[in-house]
């Protein structure tokens, strides 16, 4: 069970307070009607499966309820960085 420091609550809390939000920095295409089915399908279904540092979203579901980004090592599970939405790692 991970421990994550919520960047808004500034507390190190157990994973059970958080909900996973999938890969971070996946931008919704600004104009979907202009995309081919394949391009849209890539956005819908394809995500990175990184070995090592991985950028992902978490939500402090049982806390402040806010989404934030985590840079996490998928091998050691170490949390390398926690940063608010809109920031870059």
């Amino acid at each position, binding site marked *: *069970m*991970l*421990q994550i420091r919520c960047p808004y609550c500034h507390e190190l809390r*157990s*994973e059970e307070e958080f*909900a996973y*939000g999938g890969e971070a920095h996946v931008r*919704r295409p*600004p*104009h*979907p*009607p*202009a*995309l081919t*089915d394949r391009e*849209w*399908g890539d*956005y*819908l279904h394809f995500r990175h499966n990184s070995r090592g540092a991985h950028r992902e*979203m978490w*939500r402090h*579901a049982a806390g402040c*309820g*806010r*989404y934030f980004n985590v840079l996490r090592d998928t*091998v*050691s*599970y170490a949390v390398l960085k926690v940063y608010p*939405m*809109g920031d870059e790692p």
Partner: protein
Amino acid sequence: MPANGQPRRLAAGGRIDRSKPLNFSFDGRAMQGFAGDTLASALLANGVDLVGRSFKHGRPRGLIGQGAEEPNAIVTLGEGAASVPNLRATQVELYEGLAAHSGAKRSLKTLAGACAGLMPAGFYYKTFMRPKRLWMFWERLLRRAAGLGAPPAGPDPDLYDKFNQHCDVLVVGGGPTGLVAALQAAGAGARVILADEQPEFGGSLLASTVEMNGAAAAQWVAETVAELRTFPAVQLLLRSTAFGYHDHNFVTILERRTDHLGLVAQPLAQGAASTVPAAPRQRLHRVRAKQTVLATGALERPLVFANNDVPGVMLASALSAYVNRYAVAPGERLLLCTTNDNGYRTALDWRRIGREVTAVVDSRPQPDGALAQQARAAGIEVIAGHGVIAAVGGKRVRGALVAPLRIAAGGPSDKKSAKEAQEPNGAAHWPVAGVELAGPPRRLDCDLIASSGGWSPTIHLSVQAGGKPVWSDAAAAFLPGEPRQQTRSAGAAAGAFGLRECLLQGAQAGAAAARLAGFGDGQVSLALPDCDAPAEAPQQALFLVPHTKPVSQAPPQFVDMQLDVTAADLELAAREGYQSVEHVKRYTALGFGTDQGKLSNVNGVAILAAALGRSIADTGVTMFRPAYTPVSFGAIAGRDVGGLFDPERHTPMHSWHEAREAVWEDVGRWKRPRHYPQPGEAMQDAVDRECLAVRRGVGLMDASTLGKIDIQGPDAALFLNRVYAGRFLQLGVGRCRYGLMLKEDGTIFDDGVTVRLGESRYLLHTTTGNAEAVFAWLERWRQTEWPELKVYLTSVTDHWATAAVAGPQAREVLRQVCADIDLSAQAFPFMSARQGQVAGRPARVFRISFSGELCFEVNVPAQHGQFLWDALLEAGEAFEIRPYGTEAMHVLRAEKGFIIVGQDTDGTQTPDDMGLGWAVRPSPKPQDASEAPAFGFIGDRSLSLADHQRPDRPQLVGLKTLAAEAVLPEGAQIVNEPGRPPVDMQGHVTSSYFSAALNRSIALAMLRNGRRRMGEIVHCPLADGRTLAAQVVSPVFYDPKGERQHV
């Protein structure tokens, strides 16, 4: 023989209390042991050789080990609800009245007879899986035969709890290494938890004759523990097994608090009638440690030889423990076989109690270490360069076949190893394949064979913490790998097998862990005790002792005793092409038992490596996973059982429903009244009555559970227009609109009615079970994609109580309690909202309908819910108002063809599939590149994907069975023609009821291309063999023009 009837109990010595005899029974036989015994030591003291029967072959089995590693003596304690299966007799502390069952009698015959004892590797795959129909037969036999215990009957009467704990340094293992580590860390000021699985600290020292600081080791242990107790920030946990090492230094520890006192904890002292135990039987410690020290010790490895499972073959260290700690001599004449100096201690222990040592058989050509010299000086014959190739005996060892060994030029058992020997560095790989017989065997008489094949560090937790084990030729063992977490291994767990080195490593690890946790300078400050442990000569790596016959023809050489996996099985797996150790594990079941292969793992890997012509390092070891030893479900559940298993949500009118003896339906976590049966009514009677009340008069339903999200802000309309597929920009104040919420892939996620309460304020309704998911979904888009939108969401589900007044008389009823809202059809039309006073309470009234009837949904603040409910019932009395439940609601909405998301949909349907294309606005046309693109709605792009346009997609239709009274089962499959399979599946029934209003059955179904098949006859084959024919019709069965809700 001692007078106490324990024929193999020694007259003196040991850590048992002879003044406290304890009565117990084993398989119904009454016996006596002493306080301080384990069930295993008491059984041995009573001369019990047979403690179980083997899983596959039904061979008699005796005790091999003395702790967590024991594979054979697996017992069930007690009977009924409080019984505990799958306990190792070696870890069960004896208590007065203990009743243990081995399962040995039950096991065999059935299976051994059925299979004639022939169950080679891959037996399950080969025998049971084909033909498939026989699997059920085999499975029944196997389960009965397994003898691995049965689940308790009835609810567990015991109490369990959990502690969440934090500490600076967690030390696992309270042997010499762990004690020193804990003391060093505590001395540096760290908050320390020290956990050990045994009832007292000391670990291997409890069974040792070694002296520390010139006195018995036990004295040093007592002093060290006493010193640890002087630190207020040190927590000492006994009978506590750290069984799981999880992410971010989260360690789970099972503390057995009352198991040693009896099966069910003592009832509360005061109040004799109470059946609630006074104390939890077990406690699960969930520990977050900044640093951990794994001082988990090592498990001795048995040598593998023919018939090595005959009772009377034991681990050398286990025999020493029985002699030294429990004062039991489980035999008369010992033959000791060893590959190392340490094993000689057991021969010396045996001689010390005056028993005969037939010989020490040492595989090394010239053993001359200090311990070997001691043995020779004590007059013990040492047969060097030999091995025990087979045990002789049936239900008890009667002798051993001993033969000379030599290092092979080629390999004895496998042609591949010849190739290996030609490799320039082949010497490093020599261990297994490199030994062969150098002469004929001879027989030596004995009734006890103790074997030591070296030590395997207990690296389970280290592996769970992410460390990849590393094979060491020098230690002839897998050592802990580079840790991925904040942990370190020390002592025997790290491959240090000498006491001095263990103590030093423990102190160093304690100091290092404390420093990293922020305490001390990392230097060892303790004065370590002197100890008399002599230096040991190098050991020989030997796993399988060769037989005169090839492995495949030799008598069984057991590797995994619990699951009866032999060396021949592993060689067979290799011959059949299995290469990966993980695959071989699954193919042969090696290490799959409740002992998790504690004794078999390394031997199995070594034998496999030899068969594959590889080094052990290249072969690797299987993954160790939690739990280290079995953990009861009770401990994992803790107090989260019964009413605390999952919280229930109650509406403000819950106690009224309860008083009316409503039958409940669980929806999400909510308790909703399903129907309100009157005396003598069956469910269908009640539902019919409730439905007809709504269709003909007036009904009242508690709709408080619907998810409610308050949406405010200047961009609220824009936000709604993006998350809903419908037109929400145009929704006027005081108006309601049905909306479909889609996922990005275009499938229906949720539906519900949204009310515009004010210029920039909306109330969004979700389905009852989906409220939290919808809220999280909306927040996700608001926070991550559209932070620029000025909109705020608040979940207000629990803030409001909602009563739906539905039926032709609804207006008249509401009029009795609501004067300040004009309820007329003109002033308050369908799909609009008003605020006012109902029964004198502030209320929001929505004219929305899930029944198709005239309906007012009255919302008041939750605290007024019951008052409103009572007022509406009173007002409705003259109109014979009837409460109705969710089942009537389901029937009513199905009569109207209204879907329930999650029942009629399964996450793969588009709006068009459900006939809800009207609720979707057209997506924006591709625009000029120079123009800023407008956001459509979530999922819009996916609606035009090719697969979503497929003409043969299943579509929502109604079904009318040709026999009007026959109700199709929900989930029934639909085919075109009745007949034998294979037939093409055309769809399935999603909702099905008997409709009282129509006096016939109705069903909703998803049918391929259904909307173009109106009038066709389809068929539903049922599980009972019947096939029901039905006509495809419109999903709207009742009031197809929708006039009734508009009146």
